[in-house]
């Protein structure tokens, strides 16, 4: 567990024990777990309503409510079963940049999410990707596997260019069943990362996008005249830093975040903008709970 201690501090792990992954819809798992399922043949029990989203089974729409409110709600019938938790981790070269660097932070977040999932007897699979799809961590279950998960994460290094479409396409082919997909990335892929996740909608996956940037990427503090070199594609751009340019860049970053949020909203993905200087404990215990990712 030495590696695990590095990624998730023990005191935080104790606090994580009390958390579980929250989903907006119910999923069918392979074995009974703690997660409620909509699978038939088990002790069906009405649980809740939720808004209808594209792809939901029309048989579970509560037509009475529709008649009354003119809005589509889905009746949820719960059965506690296990959940597939997939973590898509961007390990491209850009994730190694920033101060603090983004990849170590992303690994910690992935480890924390994995720990919570494993604690809830869910299955955890991790798929790192960069220019190409890297060897994944196959679906793992049980809290005892957390050491392996941590070791797997520890081995990951930032290298290669980002190619989200290829990586996610490979990832889709390996998906089994349905579940929750966590994407941790800086989304600095000019071809678009979130768009590549769109096909997951059909598979009844609940997607949560962690948009991770470093503080100096959001608010650069350096001055002077520079030739900026892209760490991935080697592209350059000359800048003379000034207060106005800094302001313009900050505006571009906010716009970029907003675009990503809009795309996620369009697909029904949960979008969480995070920074690598945000304490992990604060993120997990407060922010993710507040945003309904954990409960």
């Amino acid at each position, binding site marked *: 567990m030495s590696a695990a201690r590095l990624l998730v501090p023990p005191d935080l792990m104790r606090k994580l024990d009390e958390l579980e992954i929250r989903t907006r819809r119910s999923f069918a798992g392979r074995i009974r777990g703690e997660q409620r399922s909509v699978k038939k043949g088990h002790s069906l029990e009405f649980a809740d309503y939720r808004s209808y989203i594209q792809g939901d089974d029309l048989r579970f729409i509560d037509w009475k409510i529709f008649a009354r409110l003119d809005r589509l709600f889905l009746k949820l019938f719960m059965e506690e079963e296990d959940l597939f938790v997939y973590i898509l981790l961007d390990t491209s070269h850009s994730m190694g940049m920033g101060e603090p660097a983004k990849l170590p932070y992303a690994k910690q977040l992935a480890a924390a999410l994995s720990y919570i999932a494993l604690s809830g007897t869910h299955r955890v699979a991790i798929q790192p990707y960069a220019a190409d799809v890297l060897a994944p961590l196959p679906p793992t279950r049980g809290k005892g596997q957390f050491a392996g998960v941590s070791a797997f994460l520890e081995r990951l290094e930032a290298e290669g260019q980002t190619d989200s479409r290829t990586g996610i396409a490979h990832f889709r082919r390996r998906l089994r069943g349905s579940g929750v997909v966590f994407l941790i990335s*800086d989304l600095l892929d000019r071809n678009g990362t979130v768009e590549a996740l769109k096909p997951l909608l059909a598979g009844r996956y609940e997607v949560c996008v962690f948009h991770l940037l470093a503080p100096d990427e959001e608010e650069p503090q350096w001055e002077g005249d520079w030739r900026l070199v892209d760490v991935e594609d080697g592209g350059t751009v*000359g800048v003379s830093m000034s207060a106005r340019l800094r302001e313009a860049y900050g505006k571009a970053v906010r716009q970029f975040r907003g675009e990503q949020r809009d795309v996620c909203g369009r697909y029904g993905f949960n979008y969480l903008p995070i920074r690598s200087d945000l304490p992990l404990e604060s993120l997990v215990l407060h922010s993710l709970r507040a945003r309904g990712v954990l409960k």
Partner: protein
Amino acid sequence: MSFLAPAALGFLALIPGIVLLYFLRLKRDVRVVSSTYLWKKTVDEFRVNRPFQKFQNHLLLWLQLLAIALLSLAAARPYADTRRDASSVHIVLLDHSASMNTREEGGRTRLELAKEFAREMARGLRSGDRLMLVGFSDRAHVAAPLTADRDALLRAVDDIGPTHRPTRADEAWLTALSVARQYDLSDVYLLSDGGFRALPQLTEANANVHFVPFGKSADNLGVVHLETRASEESRKRVEVFARIASVRPVETETLVELHRNGALVDAQRVRVPGAGERGVVFQRPSSDRGAIEVRIVEPDALAVDNRAWMALGSQDMVRVVLVGEEDVFLKQAIAMDPRVELTVIPPADYAAVKGKLADAELVVFDGVDPGPLARGSYLFLGRLPAIEGFAARGEIEQPALVKWEADHPLTQYINFSTLHVAKAVDLAQPPWMRTVLAGEKGAIIAAGERGGVRVAVVAFRVGDSDWPLRVSFPLFFANAVRWAKEEELTAHGAVRPGEPLVVRTPRDPQSGTIAPPDGAPAALPAGDADRVIVSDTDRPGVYRVKWEKRPAEALYAVSLTDPGETDVRVPEKIAMGETDLKGRAGSALVRREFWPWLLMGAIAVLFAEWLVYQYYRA
């Protein structure tokens, strides 16, 4: 404000280059970032929306532009002529050179007008004011030191009389500056007709400089150059060449007379162009002796430059002694000058008459060693004098003649190119000798003077050459006679008034007198000196020197012949360093240059620029 070096403003052309460099920014440090995606987007929008944003707001750029502007302005040397209140220290420089004798309308000379102005200044001194009076022509003298005593000043003004000297204002100017530097502020008044070149820049003195011009007349002709030269057609004639200058605006026809010893001997009518010059040549027999005078008859405003004098060679017989075997060529060549009285002494008899050669102007030793030499002039042929430094290093067969001195009295007007020498002495000579005909290995003919002994050495015997068959042979000996008597074949005018006159003394010490033009003779000091310097030469004309034991007079001429003095036109302004002083009574001009302030400003801006740069880098 004006600029002394406006071309330096061209450095401002660097500004667009610097601005361009700011846009291009060719040299940048590299910074690796996770992605340039957002940066490109930002910079593109930034450029589209605000093309001049960087230009407008880059402090470094503005500082650099300011530094360039300041440096360019400093290099252009801006200045302003400022006027100040009059000081209590007045320094008056009063010109009393020859041109100040020009008569103006009303019959008064410029000097009289200037003196009247100076008197008014002295009378008008306020309480606490002091005035210093400096008279100047080609030299300056303090007529009155800085004083408030009006009577002393008026007497000093009266004492300044006319001279016939040229104008040289530098000495007076330096005198004025040396006084002006002692005071915080002073006024320098230049009372002149401007007949001098530019004044040096006013340095280290804070003074108002006033150029007060006197005179308006431009009615003058003058002899500005006079010389005699041998006629190219015949050696029996001498040409007297004079240059007549006119500053009248229109052509003037005038009679130019030539006088010899006070008697009119020739005259020519000359048309001198307006503000121009014309040469006039008189032909005279070369036997003419005495003083000649060129005189412009046309009356004008300035009389002193209408006459110029020159002394022609004396009519004395020239006693030449030839010590050597009988040589008919040599005898003929030496005796060709009708003035020469030749005595030939065989070598065997030389010892007996050795002491009696003192009155000989020239002694020629043809292959004879005379032993120690008394004062006098000697020509050695194929033999070296017994003087330390002379030595024969050997013999040279058929020496090639390389070059000769065209301006030396011994070799002028002689072409040695046809001379062939069979053998010559390889001559080693003391450093005070001058080679006048050089062979490949050394001197063939040399001449020099040391301790009253004038020596010329010809390194070969006449019989060892074809010289007697050449034209250069008699010419050389004619030159040698003149050289021995220190006569110039080309006689240049004379000294100018005020310049020292160098009078050559006879070999045997004796008393003498010098009589200035229309003046009483004054005694000349007797002594061993070769020359006597006569400094009292203020009056132009012929100075006659008479030695007690010499029958004939030696004549020396003093003439103005100065184009600057003949040009009596008064300039509107004179140059003081790089400033023009306009001629205006009472105008006070102090030029102030601003470049030191600009330079200091530029340095401060560059320092600030460096600080800002360091701040941005940090």
